[in-house]
């Protein structure tokens, strides 16, 4: 079984701030990591390989340092990696990201299952996976929290807010996985030692035969006009002070005023 897993490098923090002078993201001191849900995706791929056999190709699109997340994917157990790195691909929105990733999948060919993390923790669009599936014209299953393979079909359970669904999809297919699906393994020291000896490819837009009009800034219908921090509310808060019993009384007064008791 041939599995392709897509991984993205993202900043490691819930605490990104904007530089008040430039209005840009403050990158200094912010580490980069593999998008946590992509780690779930890699773990899904490795578990499937352990159970059913096959190969896993990890794919990422980004600047040269995005190779770090591919190294981690290899150390976790993927068999080969592909980095799409090209200035022409930069500045892309989700459409112009999904397109080259789909072209890379086409170049690799012969895939059975494509696995993506449900969303990336920076922009959280959850669109890239379905767009890849769209360009490849293959079925997709989103919000997957378990998957097994039966006779050329992926049988998935989906975790929806009000129910769980069991879905059977004929491969080749693409699934996006939620964090509930597994706990990603730490690459073992032995895996780390072997990682960099595995086949690693770097492809440009030309290598994957991208239509220049569909990549990069010119291939992106969406643009980011501005980034800013959410406006802070400044509600006029009435504070209750005094001994604890008095504070409790004042709060219960509010309960009464609001007809809660």
């Amino acid at each position, binding site marked *: 079984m041939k599995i392709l897993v897509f991984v993205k490098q993202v900043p490691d923090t819930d605490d990104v701030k904007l530089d008040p002078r430039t209005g840009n993201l403050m990158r200094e001191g912010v580490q980069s990591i593999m998008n946590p849900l992509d780690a779930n995706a890699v773990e899904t791929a490795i578990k499937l390989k352990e159970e059913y056999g096959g190969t896993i190709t990890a794919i990422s699109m980004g600047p040269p340092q995005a190779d770090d997340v591919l190294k981690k994917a290899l*150390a976790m157990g993927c068999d080969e990696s592909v980095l799409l790195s090209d200035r022409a691909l930069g500045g892309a929105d989700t459409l112009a990201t999904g397109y080259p990733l789909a072209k890379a999948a086409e170049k690799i060919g012969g895939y059975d299952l494509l696995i993506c993390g449900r969303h990336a923790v920076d922009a959280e669009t959850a669109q890239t996976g379905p767009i890849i599936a769209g360009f490849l014209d293959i079925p997709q299953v989103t919000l997957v929290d378990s998957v097994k393979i039966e006779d050329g079909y992926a049988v998935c359970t989906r975790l929806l807010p009000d129910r769980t669904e069991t879905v059977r999809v004929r491969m080749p297919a693409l699934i996006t996985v939620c964090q509930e699906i597994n706990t990603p393994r730490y690459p073992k020291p032995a*895996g*780390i030692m072997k990682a960099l000896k595995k086949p690693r490819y770097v492809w440009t837009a030309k290598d994957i035969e991208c239509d220049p009009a569909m990549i990069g800034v010119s291939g992106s219908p969406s643009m980011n006009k501005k980034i800013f921090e959410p406006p802070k509310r400044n509600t006029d808060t009435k504070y209750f002070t005094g001994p604890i019993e008095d504070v409790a009384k004042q709060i219960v007064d509010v309960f009464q005023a609001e007809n809660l008791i």
Partner: protein
Amino acid sequence: MLIQFTEEQKMLRDMAREFTKNEIAPRDKWMDENGFDWELCKKIQAAGFMGANIPEQYGGGGGGIVDTTIIAQEFARGSASVATFMGGQWLASNLILENGTDEQRQQYLPLACSGKIFAFGLTEANAGSDAAGIKSLAVETKDGWVLNGSKAWITNSGVADYYIILAMTDPDQGTSGISAFIVPKEAKGLAIGKFEEKMGVRGSATCELAFDNIKLPKEALLGVRGKGFKMAMQTLDIGRISASAVCAGISDHALQLAKAYANERKAFGKPIKAFQGVAFRFADMYAEIKAMELLAYDAATTKDAGLRCSQDAAAAKLFATERGIQICLQAQAVFGGNGMSKEYDIERLVRDIRVWSVMEGSTEILRMIVSGGVLASK
């Protein structure tokens, strides 16, 4: 930039750092209050760290000394107790790796890699630096050996699956009369005493061991009879290098805690880092931590190249442990009164770092080794 890690070493460091941040650091306070953390131990086993020092043919990570030193330093940033645990594990399994017969290596090293815990036992209640003063005695019989005696202050005792016990086989020969034995925890006659109530590294398991006529097969002898002490000293070089990096990790943790506090705490209208009395401490801390790292990785690189490094390993530990204690105290001073409070982590680091200047070669012994080496040479 003297320390240059390979790509793989950087990946190893990043992975160890992530594991520490996610799994180890959040548990350190719990371990300080409750002792050895079996749940965390399982995670360490699952992540393949137990055999990081063992060659791949036995199922290990194939790491050299630099590699395990990197892991030890990262772990120490999160928990001195866990760094102690790993150190004890690797020390004992390294002894088997460096001195075991093929059969012993085939038997025990895969066990270490798969997660079995190993402990190294030399010290006794009445014999620490004076190793020749140990009283544990192994008497040869026609089937093997009979072991009697006791041990104290053994890291990983009480949780280990296997103990490497150093005992006298020829009491009249001093340190050349000491041999090493592999003793499984199930051995009949092995009694494990209560856990030691320690000042620091309280998440590391330490207890007394008693040996009451333990019968050991011939194959339990590790290496050559009478060479036990020498083997142990050679392997201890690795332990000392590791200890230096661990102290660098603990010291850096202390520095980071103090830095965060100095940024937040205000006095006389300013964050206290604005006062040179506070700020200057960080200059010294930084320089000394950097020095510790360089000493550690220099000795590690030398050892990995197969060259002798006993003096440098000793010098590295001497410097790192003594300066580490001072750095933690300095960092604690930044906290003022709050440095005394258990609500802040710094007091735990002050307690945790103390043991390193005592175990695996006390500062005094190390000064003997280094000064002896320096003065003996031309």
